[in-house]
């Protein structure tokens, strides 16, 4: 079909996803336009893009979330379309509408679908009315504590209080008994108010040891909508995903077909096109219930790409340009298994405390079946102001066992020095017998941490010998306090400079 592809696309995002989208554009001869805040001038996505424009100070609300500035850059650069990535404005219908009104193609679903699925309560209500299975609970916002108590009594404990405008694990409270409800309700409301500026709460039944399994859907603007298998996202810490895989060890062909068809029905109900994900909770009896829909490309999309042999970002661009889908449902095939670890700048030994700062050394794994989607490089200083995701490590194997062995090998090769990362934590997870056996649920990680998965290594005389020799060699050749890599600074100098740069807000924002 003679559809003209975009010649220039603006990527309204930063970090690893901006680079990933730009890679797809480069392969399709589409020129890329980056935007950057004051602390991102040296960021990888700026270095990678064909054009780059500043959009304001570090805080997202003054830069990456400024719709007016993004539209202005699109105009100035002559971009024809805008890819929102994930997070930031990706699921903001106001942004999608503003793009369209300004004459730019928003690479994503229609505004109406974003509005319907963006509200947890509205989407639940729509599905319930259509007779589709949702996690038992309310589809109305609950206004008073009395209402919450009554509904909780009807649904049956344990219940989960959830922020209606919520996401990212915030505004959630799990309540096991009626006595805990009142204080949990107060806490959830205040957290929701702080995180989303909206304290409204709804209620869901809490399924015991559920598995979080989501279906990738892809639809064109001609009414074709297919599902591209599932992703298992049960490995979560405090309700935030840390590891994902495709396919799910729990899902057989029959369940995949049933969940996939349900996801397509839901997508059609919303009038959906482009890429999206329908999230389900699956209980111990392998019954599945709609949890929510994400009207964007997801962080964990690479595991689907590796197993399906499809580049989802390229398909997003094609669909947005008006091309029909290139596959029919029966042509979709899974091959092998893929696993992904989200590498965060956090210190697992210190309760996952954020660890921004200078990356002194970075060596990502390589070799067969490895994919590394990184937003950082050696010598980059990870800023404080954004989500601390550094990179995604994705591996593919002919089966799950090979993928796990490959992930173990890849993690042993991963070197990051200067900041703390979650890599040591993942090294322990891949050795855990339940993980190796695929016996995972949403409580696995929190339980493993409580059981001491991060305990210290046994001492090794041999490795200590090596460390002592290396340090002595280095000291003998470079002086007692000055190793060769890189130039040292005193802590005073660094602290003083940070104060001068005014990294922390002292003025009103």
């Amino acid at each position: 079909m003679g559809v003209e592809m975009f010649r220039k696309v603006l990527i309204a995002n930063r970090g690893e996803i901006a680079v990933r989208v730009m890679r797809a554009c480069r392969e399709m001869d589409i020129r890329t336009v980056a935007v950057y805040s004051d602390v991102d001038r040296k960021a990888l996505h700026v270095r990678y893009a064909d054009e780059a424009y500043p959009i304001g100070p570090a805080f997202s609300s003054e830069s990456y979330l400024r719709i007016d500035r993004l539209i202005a850059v699109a105009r100035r650069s002559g971009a024809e379309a805008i890819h929102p990535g994930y997070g930031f404005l990706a699921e903001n219908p106001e942004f999608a509408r503003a793009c369209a009104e300004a004459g730019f193609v928003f690479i994503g679903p229609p505004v109406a679908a974003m509005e319907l699925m963006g509200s947890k309560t509205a989407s639940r209500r729509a599905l319930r009315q259509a007779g589709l299975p949702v996690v038992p609970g309310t589809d109305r916002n609950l206004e008073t504590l009395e209402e919450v108590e009554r509904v909780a009594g009807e649904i049956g404990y344990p219940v989960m209080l959830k922020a209606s405008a919520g996401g990212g694990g915030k505004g959630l409270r799990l309540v096991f008994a009626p006595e805990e409800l009142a204080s949990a309700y107060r806490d959830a409301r205040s957290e929701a108010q702080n995180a989303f500026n909206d304290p409204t709460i709804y209620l869901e039944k809490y399924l015991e040891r559920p598995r979080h399994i989501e279906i990738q859907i892809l639809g064109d603007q001609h009414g074709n909508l297919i599902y591209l298998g599932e992703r298992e996202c049960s490995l979560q810490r405090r309700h935030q995903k840390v590891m994902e895989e495709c396919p799910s060890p729990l899902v057989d062909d029959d369940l995949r077909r049933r969940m996939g068809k349900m996801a397509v029905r839901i997508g059609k109900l919303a009038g959906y096109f482009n890429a999206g994900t329908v999230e389900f909770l699956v209980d111990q009896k392998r019954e599945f219930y709609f949890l929510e829909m994400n009207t964007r490309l997801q962080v964990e999309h690479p595991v689907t790409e590796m197993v399906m042999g499809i580049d989802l970002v390229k398909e997003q661009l094609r669909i947005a340009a008006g091309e029909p889908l290139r596959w029919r449902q029966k042509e979709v095939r899974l091959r092998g298994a893929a696993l992904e670890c989200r590498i965060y700048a956090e210190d697992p030994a210190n309760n996952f405390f954020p660890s921004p700062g200078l990356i002194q050394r970075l060596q990502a794994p390589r070799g067969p079946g490895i994919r590394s989607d990184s937003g950082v490089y050696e010598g980059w200083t990870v800023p404080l102001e954004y989500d601390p995701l550094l990179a995604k490590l994705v591996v593919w194997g002919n089966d799950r066992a090979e993928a796990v062995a490959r992930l173990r090998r890849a993690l042993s090769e991963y070197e990051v020095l200067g900041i703390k990362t979650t890599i040591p934590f993942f090294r322990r997870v891949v050795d855990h017998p339940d993980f190796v056996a695929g016996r995972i649920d949403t409580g696995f990680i929190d339980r493993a941490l409580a059981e001491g998965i991060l305990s210290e290594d046994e001492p090794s005389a041999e490795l200590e010998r090596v460390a002592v020799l290396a340090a002595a060699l280095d000291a003998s050749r470079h002086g007692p306090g000055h190793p060769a890599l890189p130039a040292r600074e005193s802590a005073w100098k660094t602290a003083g400079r940070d104060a001068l740069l005014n990294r922390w807000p002292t003025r009103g924002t």
Partner: protein
Amino acid sequence: MKLTITLQHGSRTSERQLELSPPVDVAANSGPLAYVLDQEAGEADWAEVAPGTYSILIGGRSYEAQVTSPPAGAPARDLCRVVTVGTRHYRVEVHDPRRRRTAGSAVAANGPQEIVAPMPGKIVKLLVAENQEVGQGGALLVIEAMKMQNELRAPRAGRVEKIYVVPGKGVETGSRLVRLV
């Protein structure tokens, strides 16, 4: 050449005595080495393959060590090296016998340690009081940074001798928070 070396890994700290022969040639990038480590003699072959990266062969076994400086804000940053061997990180201090010995090692388990802020933030809550004993990993205070509240934990067991901050106080990278003895 005799060196005294303090080695820390996790909660364990030890002092080692190392002799190297021949004395290391500053101009060389590689070579054979004979060593005596705490009275145990051995032979090794070493090569600096990239700045700060050492390939060390001991009895035919091949290892690689990365030598770097501790991150900004870490205590006694200018005296220590961080040596990474495989997946383990060691903090190593090499005491040069030609310099005047400083009072107390930077990583010694019994030396006083100033716990500093690893990044700018605001103190939300103190979880310990002065003179309180803490275990390794014990929570000291809650600091708000990067839009999240986080607990800062004690790197080793000890007694809180002094608390330098109060709730509500803003801190910079490297600001002293707690003195642990």
